[in-house]
């Protein structure tokens, strides 16, 4: 049996190119991984983590379960394209086996089986497979139709905006759009000339055979297969350089994640897997307040990743992000968008300068004595009421406290990290770690979520428990060390980005407020909470833009009809205070006011 025809050449070239290009990429990225990561892979390769990864590949790369959760219509579009196509390949392969038995058939023989059937003299039909293949083709075509619709009107898909694409993507996208319609035409023409029983291609073939003159059908027969094969070829060649690389990059990424690899403050080749696993679905655009409130349209994660991937990232795009994490929370691929943004900044800004911060040597402004340390944080010194309330609470429970920075302290280092100066930040980290150790504390309480996050993620504080003050107060109340009186006020709690999405602390502050009054939730809360706009991570937007972000989110908090807005971050507090008409208090103030003295 022959399984070759000239029209298959574009397809064959495309396939070989695709495999070569993708294999080169993957091998290069894997070889360049840092040694620790390679050790992790070796360590976890033959464990159940690998099985878990296989299961996730099925769920995410084929079925796109996470996209379904964010946006069902979009999920259906992705799943019908990905899973439908995958089944077309698998069922197509079984189909050839059903016709020919277990004999070796080259790849193009499977892919263009309908073409090779008649020239190999196979005239009997396997109706089950013909119907099945037609059904799958219909599913994929539905996906394509939805994709067309999404381009035309993104709102139809429940999205305000869809991604703007670069040239490479357009080539691949156009090819992809027409691959399946071309297949439909080619197979229908084949059915018209040689018969077929599928409900789609078969019926279309019959209709064509009845209406179109036979010569014309013969004339278009070969070219239609040429078109199908060429579109596949073009798509495969463009694929490794376009967004569709995500189909292939996501698979190794899932395995690497299950083997416990993750991006860090320094760039490494692992990042390439994450960057190229972005499908540019655009789901990250809508949650971004820079887009919805300020109309900034070129900095969102999808554009950031695209720019980084093609080496056209500029400082302004890298820096124009609040790192609020709202997009990261929604990304169906689970890309570590904040960390990638951070290490892009580090690459451009981190200039090691040894003479820096010499003045830290021997510095110690701390006061007091105790196993509990209190680190207010730079920002908290601008909200003295918080600091004062904490001191009242410490006094009420009789805690011996060592105050790290009551008379001026050293920054925790996260602001420097956020702007990409990781080496400089390391000096702060070393200084503060040493300070905490020297004073033998076992618990470290901080009022600033920014500090909290860096203490937990970048400091090595084994033996010292790090708590946010809301967690600390929550513990005091549940342990019965602190009693508070309930008042009749209604409180709305604002989740600070760094505390909520950053450290996963949502319940402790709510429990604390509930002990005092009624908690009313705003429209966006917890993982979905809005950013106050004053984030240190953004050095591009100006004051008026910060103010606008703050006003819009404050309006939403006030819409709950609360008496008082409560938050637990000095930066959020400042931002809300600028815009609020009702009173704004830190969680420690709410508690300190209501302490029951025994």
């Amino acid at each position: 049996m022959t399984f070759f025809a000239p029209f298959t050449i574009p397809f064959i070239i495309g396939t070989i190119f695709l495999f070569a290009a993708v294999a080169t990429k993957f091998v290069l990225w894997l070889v360049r991984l840092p040694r620790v990561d390679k050790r992790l892979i070796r360590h976890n390769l033959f464990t159940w983590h690998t099985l878990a990864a296989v299961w996730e590949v099925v769920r995410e790369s084929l079925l796109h379960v996470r996209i379904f959760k964010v946006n069902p219509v979009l999920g259906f579009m992705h799943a019908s394209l990905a899973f439908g196509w995958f089944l077309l390949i698998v069922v197509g392969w079984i189909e050839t086996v059903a016709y020919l038995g277990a004999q070796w058939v080259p790849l193009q023989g499977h892919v263009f089986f309908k073409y090779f059937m008649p020239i190999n003299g196979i005239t009997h039909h396997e109706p089950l497979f013909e119907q099945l293949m037609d059904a799958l083709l219909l599913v994929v075509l539905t996906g394509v139709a939805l994709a067309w619709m999404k381009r035309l009107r993104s709102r139809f898909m429940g999205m305000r905006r869809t991604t703007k694409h670069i040239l490479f993507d357009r080539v691949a996208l156009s090819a992809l759009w027409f691959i399946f319609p071309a297949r439909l035409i080619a197979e229908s023409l084949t059915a018209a000339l040689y018969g077929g029983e599928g409900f789609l291609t078969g019926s279309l073939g019959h209709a064509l055979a009845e209406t179109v003159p036979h010569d014309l059908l013969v004339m278009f027969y070969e070219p239609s297969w040429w078109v199908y094969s060429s579109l596949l070829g073009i798509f495969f060649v463009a694929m490794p350089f376009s967004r569709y690389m995500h189909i292939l990059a996501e698979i190794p990424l899932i395995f690497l994640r299950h083997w416990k690899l993750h991006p860090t403050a320094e760039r490494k080749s692992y990042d390439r897997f994450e960057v190229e696993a972005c499908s540019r679905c655009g789901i990250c655009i809508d949650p971004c307040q820079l887009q919805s409130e300020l109309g900034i349209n070129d900095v969102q994660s999808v554009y950031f990743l695209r720019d980084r991937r093609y080496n056209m990232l500029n400082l302004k795009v890298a820096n124009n992000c609040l790192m609020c994490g709202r997009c990261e929370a929604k990304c169906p691929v689970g890309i570590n968008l904040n960390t990638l943004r951070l290490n892009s900044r580090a690459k451009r800004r981190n200039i090691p300068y040894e003479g820096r911060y010499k003045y830290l040597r021997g510095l110690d402004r701390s006061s007091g004595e105790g196993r509990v340390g209190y680190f207010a944080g730079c920002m908290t010194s601008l909200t003295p009421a918080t600091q004062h309330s904490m001191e009242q609470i410490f006094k009420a429970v009789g805690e011996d406290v060592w105050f790290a920075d009551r008379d001026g302290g050293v920054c925790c280092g996260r602001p420097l990290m956020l702007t990409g100066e990781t080496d400089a930040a390391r000096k702060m980290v070393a200084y503060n770690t040493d300070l905490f150790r020297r004073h033998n504390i076992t618990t470290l309480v901080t009022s600033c979520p920014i500090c909290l996050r860096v203490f937990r993620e970048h400091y090595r504080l084994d033996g010292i428990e790090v708590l946010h003050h809301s967690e600390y107060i929550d513990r005091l109340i549940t342990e019965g060390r602190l009693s508070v009186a309930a008042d009749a006020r209604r409180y709305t709690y604002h989740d600070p980005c760094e505390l909520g999405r950053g450290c996963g602390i949502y319940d402790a502050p709510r429990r604390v407020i509930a002990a005092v009054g009624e908690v009313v939730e705003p429209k966006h809360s917890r993982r979905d909470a809005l950013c106050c706009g004053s984030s240190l991570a953004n050095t591009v937007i100006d004051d008026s833009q910060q103010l606008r972000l703050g006003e819009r989110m404050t309006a939403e908090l006030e819409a709950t009809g609360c008496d008082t807005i409560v938050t637990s971050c000095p930066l959020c507090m400042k931002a809300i205070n600028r815009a609020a008409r009702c009173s704004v208090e830190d969680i420690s103030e709410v508690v300190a006011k209501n302490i029951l003295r025994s």
Partner: protein
Amino acid sequence: MRNINFGYGISRPRAIDIDNNDLRKSNAIIAEMPELQACIGCGSCTASCTAGNLTEFNFRRLHTAVRRGEYKGAYEDINKCMLCGKCRLVCPRGINTRALIMLIKRKLGDF
């Protein structure tokens, strides 16, 4: 009397001839961040400064000097800043001071 420091002074008394200063870098900084011209020299940034609390670092003096084309020692000095961002929160003119610090560093040394 001479020893009392009221904290208003930006620099010790001396004669400066601005015409002799090379204003190219200063102009480039202002071109990139025109809002710096809105500074009223109130000194709130210096008063709240974390680094200024621990050292002689004086942000108001620094950015005023740089604007006037006096760059000597400015780069070394600005590297004392920890980018904590307090100055941005207190500035009554809403100047994006952290971006300004990064910009001064970029123009005077880094990169």
